[in-house]
């Protein structure tokens, strides 16, 4: 299971990096969203998967799943939401001002 999820995270990272490298600002935002998904999965994997019960001490169990990555991810989810929201509005405002969603055109280059 761990290996499979890691490979999935790798695929998502590849997709994210490819999207980030493009010129369209929308693709870049999508790329950053996908990248955070990939990272959340990776963090999850690091704590080991399906090895113990839910990290609630109310559930009596001799072994709990690692809670630390979960706390990290919870923080990361909220932060990545904030970043995505900010980027989206940034893109939207730049589009309003410059009439372009292309990073190259924004710098004053017309299309080649």
């Amino acid at each position, binding site marked *: *299971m*761990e*290996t*499979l999820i*890691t490979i*999935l*995270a*790798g*695929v*998502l*990272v*590849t997709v994210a*990096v*490819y*999207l980030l490298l*493009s*010129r*369209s600002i*929308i*693709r870049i935002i*999508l790329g950053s*969203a*996908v990248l955070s*998904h*990939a990272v959340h999965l*990776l963090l*999850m*994997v690091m704590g*080991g*998967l*399906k*090895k113990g*019960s839910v*990290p*609630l*001490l109310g559930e009596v169990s001799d072994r*709990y799943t*690692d*809670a*630390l990555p*979960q*706390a990290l*991810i*919870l*923080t990361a*989810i*909220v*932060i990545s939401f*904030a970043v995505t929201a*900010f980027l*989206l*509005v*940034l893109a*939207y*405002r730049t*589009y309003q001002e410059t009439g372009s*969603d292309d990073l190259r055109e924004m*710098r004053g280059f017309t*299309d*080649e």
Partner: protein
Amino acid sequence: MLTITLAIFIPFLAALFVPSIYKWKPDKIGWFILIIPLVLFISLVRFIPRVAGGETISHTFDWIPSANIYFTTYLDGLSLIFGLLITGVGSLVILYSIYYLTARESLSHFYVYLLMFMGAMLGVVFSDNMMVLYVFWELTSISSFLLIAFWYHRKQSRYGAQKSMLITVSGGVAMLAGFIMLYAMTGSFSIRENIAMIGEFTNHALFVPAMILVLLGAFTKSAQFPFHIWLPDAMEAPTPVSAYLHSATMVKAGIYLVARFTGIFGGDAVWFYTVSIVGIFTLFWGSFNAVRQTDLKALLAYSTISQLGLVMSLFGLGSAALHEGYSDQSVLYAQATFAALFHLINHSTFKGALFMVVGIVDLNAGTRDVRRLGGLMALMPVTFTIALIGSFSMAGLPPFNGFLSKEMFFEAMLTVRHLEFFSIGSWGILFPILAWVGSIFTFVYSMIIVFQTFFGAHQPERLDREAHEAPMGMLIAPSILGLLVVAVFFFPNVVGDYLLRPAMSAIYPSLPNIAGAMKSIKIWHGPNLALWMTVGVVVIGFLLYASLKYWRSMYKVGPFRWGLDSVYNGALSMMERSSTVLTNRYMTGYLRHYLIYIFGIFLILTAGTLVLVGGVPFDFSNDSSITVNEYILVFGMMVAGVLMIFVSSRVTAILLNGVLGYSIALFFVIFRAPDLALTQIVIETVTTALFLLCFYFLPEVKKERVKRPAKIVNLLIAISVGTLVTVIALAVQGSNMFDSISIYFENAYELTGGKNIVNTILGDFRAFDTMLEVVVLFIAGIGVYTLVKLKSRKEGRDVED
């Protein structure tokens, strides 16, 4: 004693109240400010008897104890002299500035900067910890920068401020490196502890580099050759500032540093030669260049440089006393330090008075150009008298204090001839010669100040204003200094016994008897070689002054015209140009390029490390089982991910992103993370709504119009980053190098009373992270809000202006 620590902070605290006092009484603000240095001066004066009795006073509180940084204040004879200068001259300067600056200037800024400087300067001289000293040291540079640029609308002011900042701060950074080297040797930041311990480290490899770096700090601050070029440009500051910072106090911080560190580095040949040669050459060069100046303030600037060189060279010679313990010879050299301290005080009195005189002339005649001035004696009698006293003292004539210290200076220089160690040989004779030549030029420019300003023909048609005497209040401060100049001449041993001798024991802690062995200062010491030198200075100086117009043209000859200023300007603009070229080469403004740098470095570093450590341990034995529906989920996510690259419709892209998000929520359920699953579902919903909202306004995602080679590069980078991440993640899982820290959190209930471990981590164990996260979220919200609202005010004015 807490008093000294308080003395440092009182000016800073007072600065906080300046704006509100300014609002209340804008035209009386100076009088309120005057109280502070006056009170500090009086409280320091009360320490004189105790310090003269050999007592030292120190107080410590912890600042950063983990880094060995304690806020230790230390009052001994040396710091007391400087403390008195700072507060005493400070009081007079503030009194003077009340009349000098009109209410139209931004007085509240002026006094805030001035108080900041005063506190910082007191911090420099009272700190025993080198790190604390460094902090205050740079603070004086910053406040000096702000004060020079006080009239910031003038280009010359900004240029001068920047120049002084660049030179003194880079010197300060060098000094910091020197301090750290000292710490590396002795393991202590305390100056006193260093003095006590340094004997074991004089052969350490870092000893000489540390010394040179500390000296760089001192030389840049005290405007020693070749770093003196910032001081003439600093004269763009208002005259009270020039009198205070750039003649009486801040430029003496370098001298203080040399005096204070004599105990550590003194006795070493490198220290002796560097300090004394740089000093004596600065004395000569400064006085030589002062003669060519036509602006009175520039003349005083070069004269200050030259006088600082004089004091510096004396401290250099005095350090020889530490070469071999206490002996008759070391008393002879310590006499140089005694002279240095004496001249330090004298210089502050006469140069402060002269600066104030020049300010008065400038204000009441409208110019500082000696070619346009003349004949002011009858119009400004009081100003003239003060100028006469100051200039004649500077020239080394009786009955003024400059005569006494100049004689002591000559005597000290003459002792170098007898110096038997440091393999000086017959070169020693150069010291008295350079000192003598420098003094001749000093005499010449002192005469220029008096005679060309106050004698000769009055030229009212060439002045911007009708010249008249300054108001009473403005004359008080320079008159007090003028009186001191005369008083010190007649009662030199009051200064000598109460201030100089305690300072001597502070500079030579290893030679406890040295203070008592100093000869008392005599007004008349019979016709000796030093006196004949003075007579020579007066005769030749007078001849040179009389023939000034015949030989002045020599300054226009080649090497004298191309000064160090053009070197500085050239170097600065060259650095600016080349760094622009260099930065523009990699800072292209394209996100893609920056990301390629980031990913490239990430790839090279991590992949390189993996290769270097050899092999990656994979271990799949510990994996848990996979069910069929999990396979389907993973496969679905992969397809959705890859499809995102190819879609051309916005809605499809959002949907695919949603597929990824909700699938991850499902995984969180499978992986026993209910909190995450809940959060992910809600966040994904809100994010999708947000995407839809924004995409409503954004254009269609177009097919990428990037050329094929660029696409292939992107793909290659993407695939290699993806692969590397996978490999690293697998390697991490394969090896178990550290114990898990998560067991600790399973005691959550006992420790926090909560049973949800994830939430106890968020709210309790790592609450600080969560708090910052909340702040980040808030900032993002504010950012979004302002981004959207910003445009309503866009019209109208240009931001660039």
